[in-house]
């Protein structure tokens, strides 16, 4: 497995473009590759609940996107579709130009390794230390032991958890748990980072720290998609905001606030 230590920086001038996967940018700048695209996506769960309806969303490489909206709007559903944990009822989901709906079962793991994801409930293993939780993602994808150690150390340094490496998740604060989950998501050097922020609000200072961390990751060239309820943070950083309501996209603005500004 390739361990990229320096991701491409400067998203707008990223040299990692592939022909055929580009979009003509309206402002005439060099267009970025599309990492992620949803076209006319509708998702109905088996119980009949329609969580998404006709969603169109395009995310170019290097973007930083907040996915906002009230509880139950469909944010987590969007994320589940992007990692092919669920399949769309209608429409297509493209990741790196590949139609996830037509992906062969055995290719699913490869796609998932390109994505680093932090789940709304973290999904940390309570009986493993911070270090082992983070290393687990490498271990189960076939990394060699001697490659795991340095990679884990590196991401723990990035998220600032070097001092807590030997603690169990139960001995961590909420923010530290979230940072552990972020470290695990980053340990593969993903090109796309997705965070589903927990609804139970974290301390505002910690939320701020986490956002700073994600902005730094984004500056390294990683595309970031973050589902959040945190209005203050979203408004403060002025990035692209995609707002969902009742399973539909009601707003998609660059440099926006959490709420609509007229």
């Amino acid at each position: 497995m390739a361990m990229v230590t320096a991701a491409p920086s400067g998203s707008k001038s990223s040299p990692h473009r592939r022909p055929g996967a580009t979009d003509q940018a309206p402002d005439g700048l060099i267009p970025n590759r599309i990492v992620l695209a949803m076209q006319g996506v509708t998702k109905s769960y088996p119980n009949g609940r329609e969580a998404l309806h006709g969603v169109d969303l395009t995310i170019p490489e290097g973007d930083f996107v907040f996915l906002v909206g009230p509880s139950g709007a469909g944010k987590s559903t969007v994320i589940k579709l992007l990692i092919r944990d669920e399949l769309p009822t209608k429409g297509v989901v493209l990741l790196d130009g590949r139609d996830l709906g037509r992906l062969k079962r055995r290719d699913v793991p490869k796609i998932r390794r390109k994505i680093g994801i932090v789940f709304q409930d973290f999904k940390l293993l309570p009986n493993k230390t911070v270090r082992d939780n983070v290393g687990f993602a490498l271990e189960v994808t076939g990394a060699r032991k001697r490659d795991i150690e340095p990679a884990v150390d590196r991401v723990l340094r990035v998220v600032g958890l070097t001092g807590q490496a030997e603690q169990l998740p139960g001995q961590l604060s909420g923010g530290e748990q979230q940072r552990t989950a972020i470290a695990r998501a980053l340990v593969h050097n993903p090109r796309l980072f997705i965070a589903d922020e927990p609804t139970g609000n974290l301390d505002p200072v910690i939320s701020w720290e986490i956002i700073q961390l994600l902005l730094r990751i984004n500056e390294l060239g990683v595309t970031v998609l973050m589902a959040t309820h945190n209005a203050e943070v979203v408004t403060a950083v002025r990035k692209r905001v995609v707002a969902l309501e009742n399973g539909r996209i009601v707003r998609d603005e660059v440099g926006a606030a959490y709420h609509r500004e007229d």
Partner: protein
Amino acid sequence: MFAFVAFSLRRAWHGFWRNGLMSIAATATMVLMLVLLSGLIILLTGLDATLNYVQQEVQVVAYMKDSATPQDISNLEVSLQEMAQVTQVNYVSKDQAMKDFLARHPDEADVIGSLSTNPLPASLQINLRDPNDYLDIATFLKSQPAVDRVLNIKNTVDQMVTVIGILRAGGTVTLVVVGLIVLFIIVNTIRLAVVARADEIEIMRLVGASDAFIRWPFIFEGAFVGLLGAAITIGLLFVGQGPLTGFLSDYFKVLPVEASATVGRNVALIVLGTGVGIGVLGSYLSVRSYLIR
């Protein structure tokens, strides 16, 4: 590759002990099944060997009247040899019969020596191409004036064939039933192990672990139950082999001794293969539903 095998083995080992009680129960039932299996194989092999021995040695024995002249006997011998069903005819004279008897029962020499005449009859020992032709030959022999009595080996053979048939059928049915029970127990043991790891498996799937990483630890765990069960069974057989062989050779008298080494090796291989096979199959069935949808 090495990382994968090491990872799978480590998890299999932890999985086995995490559910210690259940794993031990599964191993115990596995041993029970394998002991039954090897017992049946050994018994059937012994009976088969005995049957072969009986069939090969002499299939028909015709005892001659003491009044029969050597001419009568050699005429009979010639006509037997001309029969298509007969492969071989041996003549055992009265003297030869006595020597054979003394060779087998040396301690009775005194008794025999005290006799004024040799009580043992001369006989013709006839080998048949097909034991089923016995009746033809027996009928022919009985019609001969020189023949006193035809020994009914056919009856013994028939009884053995019946016993072996019943044992084989009954044993196979019992084994299949016990085998299914063992499979059921293994499936449940491994399923418990899978459920205990449901969170881990979910994370593995979501971070991009391939099916192999999810499946093989459990397959190894099942194989481990099978391996342990087989090892215990082979150990038990090894310990019990002395008394068992003693019992068998006492009971059947004629168990060919030279066969036991190969029989032992074959039984060990069958026990090992069956144990590991059932363990692997059980695990495979348990994890199937937990892989990527």
